[in-house]
């Protein structure tokens, strides 16, 4: 066996048993893991966001929906979860079209997010498998 195939958290029941729950059943609990409040929570007004969290330092990438492709394909207007519109460099992805959901870091789209990135039914097959998948996303 080459790769990981054991755990699928999206198909797991709360006791951690695997395989007898329908896809998404494990995600049915409405209780999210809650982040702790930072002791030093962004006292620096020049921090990247009010929580003192730097998206660049954290290598954070956020999913955004493409609203409009500009300028011969080099830039797109995208909107994040909160609806704010920003211009994003899309030159590292081929054939970006309106409606795509892309993963954005430091103003550049690095990958497509499969499945539209909206709240919906969870496909348990997205996690687990042989650990070598994912070819369907990215540039």
């Amino acid at each position, binding site marked *: 066996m080459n790769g*990981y195939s054991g755990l699928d958290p999206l198909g797991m029941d709360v006791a951690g048993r695997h395989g007898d729950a329908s896809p998404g059943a494990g995600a049915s609990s409405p209780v999210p893991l809650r982040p702790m409040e930072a002791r030093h929570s962004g006292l620096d007004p020049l921090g990247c966001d009010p929580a003192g969290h730097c998206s660049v*330092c*954290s290598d954070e990438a956020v*999913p955004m929906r493409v609203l409009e492709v500009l300028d011969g394909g*080099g830039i797109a207007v995208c909107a994040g979860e909160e609806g704010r519109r920003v211009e994003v460099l899309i030159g590292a992805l081929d054939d970006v079209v309106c409606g795509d959901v892309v993963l954005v870091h430091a103003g550049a789209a690095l990958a497509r*997010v499969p499945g539209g990135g909206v709240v919906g039914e969870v496909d348990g097959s997205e996690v687990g498998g042989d650990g070598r998948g*994912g070819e369907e996303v990215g540039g």
Partner: protein
Amino acid sequence: MKFVEEFRNAALGRAVASQIRELADPYRHYKIMEVCGGHTHSIYRYGLADILPENIELVHGPGCPVCVIPMGRIDDAIAIARRPEVIFTCFGDMLRVPGGSGTLQEAKAAGADVRLVYSPLDALRLARENPDREVVFFAVGFETTAPSTALTLQRARAEGVENFFCYVNHVLILPPIRALLESPDLRLDGFIGPGHCATVVGARPFQFIPSEYGKPVVISGFEPVDILQSVLMILRQLAEGRCEVENQYRRVVPWEGNPAALRVLAEVFELRPHFEWRGLGFISQSALRLAPAYRAFDAELRYQVPGVRIADPKACQCGEVLKGVIKPWECKVFGTACTPDHPIGTCMVSSEGACAAYYNFGRFKRVRV
């Protein structure tokens, strides 16, 4: 949002932690390094260390790009920022990183035109809006951030913008991992690999870690269940006697990376022969500089900079923290002389730095609470 909520589910997190407890050998001490600063931040933000068994130790690696920039490079940035013709732009955390002659924030207070931007594209926009000034962007970050700089430079070149320059400090993730693995004072059982960096470079380049050094690697997402699942996958490899690269974050990370992004990087950048990493010293071919076709945008060639190598403060033990040799609380100045408001070492500057993560989330003591 899909692919986010599922991986913050408390019941799932507890279930995975339960599986980890069942699988972990109680007579063995596991040391697992999370390479990326984003993982460090998530681990302490969500208190993940507390729900793992006592014998699983998470070691924080050199994956915060702010934390690895040496003081001399900051002084060079300040020297550029002080020039009257320059608008100096950078990401937020770089403002507070201490160099030998203060910080960019202090330079700003003293009159330098230093401005925060969220992307290099913002800096290029500033250059277009200020044709009588020279706009310099302080480019930092790993392979995740470098494509944004590269794409912006491609645009600047195509548009013929002549007042935009980059002070390039982009670093690569694989050379420091190799340097760590060569370190005689380090014992690790496996690596949680950097998810978004791997979005660009892919999971495949991490194969040298299991093949040459015999350590398992799991490329991981950043949500709490992602990280717990990655720990479980590493434990599974160890329990089953396997040693390979696995991709927990395959919903985003392709095995071969993003070829288009890699092509852009190859066009705009070339490898530096060597680069100094804070705490790790000089590492060969571990950073990027502009390729000859883009040298006209190179701030290091445009401006005279001191270029002096400055030793870290003696009291600061960022190097040992970055190598995972000591925990942040074991540093002599942690939480006393060195705090997020008055950082001595870079690991206390960025919220993704190991020391700041410990300090911010109240982890001052060795004992668990």
